[in-house]
């Protein structure tokens, strides 16, 4: 799996996510949900993000992908929300709609929260889950 990219770790959109989201958890589940906050957008206000298909109509959304379905960790171990509080009520594994368009510019970035739990209790490292944008493109406004 390639390294993380395209997300920003700060609201000012100056720091691009370049590392994996490290979710260290104890095997008995006692660690609880590991939470991450990221930002989606582009600092260039002349650009926007829309879906490739039906741009401006279809939702730009985040999805949880599992490269090894039915094996190891499952997509349902991840919840997505627009706020930290929203994680508690988010549907495990469900996609998160971000709107039909995300305009560029710092003020237009969308804050997203990713919550990770462990349902396996299996000791070891796993990189099978990713959080991705659906099929979108970055283009000029």
């Amino acid at each position: 799996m390639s390294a993380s990219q395209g997300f920003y770790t700060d609201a000012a959109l100056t720091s691009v996510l370049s590392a994996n989201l490290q979710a260290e958890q104890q095997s008995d589940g006692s660690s609880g949900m590991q939470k991450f906050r990221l930002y989606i957008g582009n600092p260039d206000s002349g650009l926007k993000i829309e879906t490739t298909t039906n741009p401006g109509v279809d939702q730009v959304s985040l999805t949880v992908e599992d490269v090894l379905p039915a094996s190891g960790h499952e997509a349902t171990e991840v919840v997505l929300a627009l706020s930290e509080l929203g994680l508690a009520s988010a549907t495990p594994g469900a996609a998160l709609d971000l709107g039909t368009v995300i305009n560029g510019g710092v003020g237009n970035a969308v804050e997203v929260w990713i919550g990770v739990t462990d349902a396996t209790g299996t000791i070891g490292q796993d990189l099978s889950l990713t959080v991705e944008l659906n099929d979108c493109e970055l283009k000029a406004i």
Partner: protein
Amino acid sequence: VIEQRIKGPQLAVAVIEQQIIDAPTHRWGLVVTLGGTDVTDRITGLVSIDAEESASTLATFSLLPESGPFDLLAWVGQAVTIDYLSKESSGAERWRSRRFTGEVIEPVHDPDTGLVRFSCSNKLQRRIAAMSREEIDAVIGGRWSAHVFDKDASAWQYAQDRLSTRPACLWIDASGVVRLTDWAAKATPDITHTEADRMASRVQVSRANKDRLKNQSDITLDFRFNRLKQRQQVITWRYPGSLCSFLKNPFPLPQRGQIQAAAEGSGWHLHGAVAFTPVWPGQVVNCGSGTYGEMDTRIWALDALGVEDPDLGGLCIGASFTLARRWVQTVTETYALQVVAPKSQEANGVIGAEAAYGVDASSDEQAVSWEQELSGLSAAGEGNTASAAGLAATMPAGTVELSNGDWLYEASEAESDGRAAMQEAQRTLLDRVRVEFLDAHRRNAVRYRVPFAAELDISKTLRLVTASVTAQGKLRACGERFDIGSGDAHCEVALAISRSGATGQVSESTRDPIGAPASDPLTSYAHSRSLGTYLGGRITSPDYDETWAGYVSNYEWDPDNVTPFDANPDQTAPVYPDQFVVDTIEIGEADRQAISASAAQVFQVDIPIDELTESAA
């Protein structure tokens, strides 16, 4: 126009790296309340609780506020509690332990994260400041002297002053109770940590700064007070002859009022009443044989009808009275207290300091009052002119009779500035210096990290045994860290290790005040004195002497009574002034001048030696 388009899913991908690690049997959690409301679900990140000897315990945590506007200041002062929960792997609560009780002192909002960082304190200083001095005394004990500390100090400073005389720390426990714990490490540790307990952090051993050590203190304490003294003397005068000898050599008997006036004008205080010896009653008395063998019969104070002279009552043939004098002598006692820690000096050399204090119990007002009071005591002494018990009854309680007969009242008994206060000042200074020594020598520290243990608090004695370090000491500081994100819960502990630098112990001195030095040179004097009778008017009479004290008069001349009077009064015979003279003895310089005396003593302090062994691997 070339429009560059970047298409997803490569547009944004975040890889989740799940690292599942072996979990302990039990889980933990926190319960945090803010203003009485459970806000645990909103707490995120690291929760820290830092406790330290004689300081407020501080707690910090981050909270995600509910959506909507909030007022940071509204949180200031709100009550905060933090409980640690031990849970079964199922999540069921096993037990909980209160870790902090305090209030918010500063909330800080981070707009970037949306979190509010709360800094909280159990406010030790404010808790103490709200106490009365009696309550502080009950909690801290120790000693306090207005001659060592500021009597107008705030409650907090007062507590610090008392604490400076006790080798102990003041703290507030997790439940909010103010507690005092001795510095001394217990002989048996409460908890022993081994290599297996110690978390993956190095053990840090730091030594006390030698420049801050102190092992000798030279204290000078001056105690100045008034010594109130009284001296008295019983004065007697009596006509030395019989009625016949008087009738044969008559002279004017003294008037009682004459003697009274002389006594009162002596310069000393007439203490009580004058006791007069009445003259002989009127009578016919046989005074032996005359020149030719005839009966010498004489009449005394009877008229022709045998009636006694009514003026006899104003005369006397003797008098006795007590004269008293009070004065004030200023005494300065200087106490030199040297406090030493011999074992530390053996290892570190002498590192000392000097300090001087004074207790002044002398008072001009008191001195004047003492001297003036005597004039008001006549009534009390009435009829007890020569009675020691009568004299003592006129003096303040505590007045003692000295071996030379003087009476002494040491005006040093006042509660605030008297001898007792001076002695308490000595005890306070001795205790304070001892605490300074102990404090300076327990600044060696061993720091390490262990998994969280609910029984850890400032009162505990810990022992660490590893391959390289063995140490035992009382917990000086404990920082609890609860990382909600990582699940890590640990304590960063710092042990205070007392070391003198040398081996062995010394016998510690009892810190009792030095006894008062002898400072009262006594002058002997006659406790009673008889005044003479000096009669002129005859050639056998000596020349008049101004130093005579007593009754001074002249023989009567009666030309009809040749015998036993001179046939002719010799015109050259000295004639004395008719007077009754009462003189007084001098109170010497030794009794009056300011005196000083000094006393010195060395007090030994034993520095406890806590175990601290370091060895190479």
